[in-house]
């Protein structure tokens, strides 16, 4: 069981750090087209912010922000976003995962750009949910030594 850290410096720093880190995760996600990064890295960073929260403010603080079944559902939703992006490529007349055929009011090249953004968002959701759930299960409330 992880308790709240005693030092006010640590707790205050983490309170300030977490929103910034989450903003950075969003930046890594949407800027993956032009710079290193993408859905996977963004997902891990997003998941890690919640782990940081638990390590500094205690397990209860994490439980206030994260509901595990909802978290698992979000992860599955991420995979669903990926799958549906592929299916919508078929709806638009292409093959599965053909983003250029996505029914969007933009050019086929731009549609592929957005298709990449959609699937990266799905990947980020799935990865973030998995990291958080893994930590929640491993650092459970009860101590089973």
């Amino acid at each position, binding site marked *: 069981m992880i308790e709240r850290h005693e030092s006010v410096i640590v707790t205050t720093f983490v309170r300030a750090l977490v929103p910034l880190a989450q903003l950075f995760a969003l930046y890594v996600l949407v800027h993956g087209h032009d710079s*290193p990064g993408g859905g996977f*890295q963004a997902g891990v960073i997003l998941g890690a912010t919640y782990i940081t929260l638990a390590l500094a403010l205690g397990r209860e603080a994490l439980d206030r922000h994260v509901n595990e079944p909802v978290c698992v559902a979000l992860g599955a939703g*991420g995979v669903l976003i990926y799958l549906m992006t592929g299916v919508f490529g078929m709806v638009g007349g292409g093959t599965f995962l053909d983003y250029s055929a996505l029914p969007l009011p933009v050019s086929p090249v731009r549609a592929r750009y957005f298709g990449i953004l959609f699937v990266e968002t799905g990947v980020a959701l*799935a990865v973030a949910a998995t990291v958080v*759930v893994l930590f929640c299960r*491993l650092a459970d409330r009860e101590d089973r*030594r």
Partner: protein
Amino acid sequence: MSETLLAILLVLLVVLGAIAVRAADLLLAVIALGAYGFVMALIWATIGAVDVAFTEAVVGAGATTVLMLAALLRTSRRRSPLPSRLRWVALAVVIAVGMALISTTTALAPWGDPTSPPAAHVSPRYLTRTVAETATPNAVTSVLADYRGYDTLIETVVILTAGLGCWLLLQRDRP
């Protein structure tokens, strides 16, 4: 310069690996493994694989370390000694696998060779066409999410499956 740096980092890698294997305190082993991941990220960055370096830094040095620390909370900080007859079996297996791996390194394409099969097959097409076809200058992103979309889809399913498996296996109110 970068080759000197690479040599230093590789030596550091071996030292950290040895510490992680030999440490009697598993907390020390986990921290050494985290440092190992970070040095690995530096190596990827040094040889120009920035996306891999990024992933290694957040996963190898960050998430894995924290998850292993959480696992230590559930188990014990002390390692249990291996039975002595198993030591020789382990040594023999490690030497055999190590020899096999080293013997295959000569079959690898030289690093950075533009005429090697990995660099000459489909890579030039991805690198030259990614901006025109997907408006995405970072070829790593376009290859991962567009050209090789199936691979990434299945990888995401694998990650979710791993998460689901741990979630179900480590439930709180199991008898």
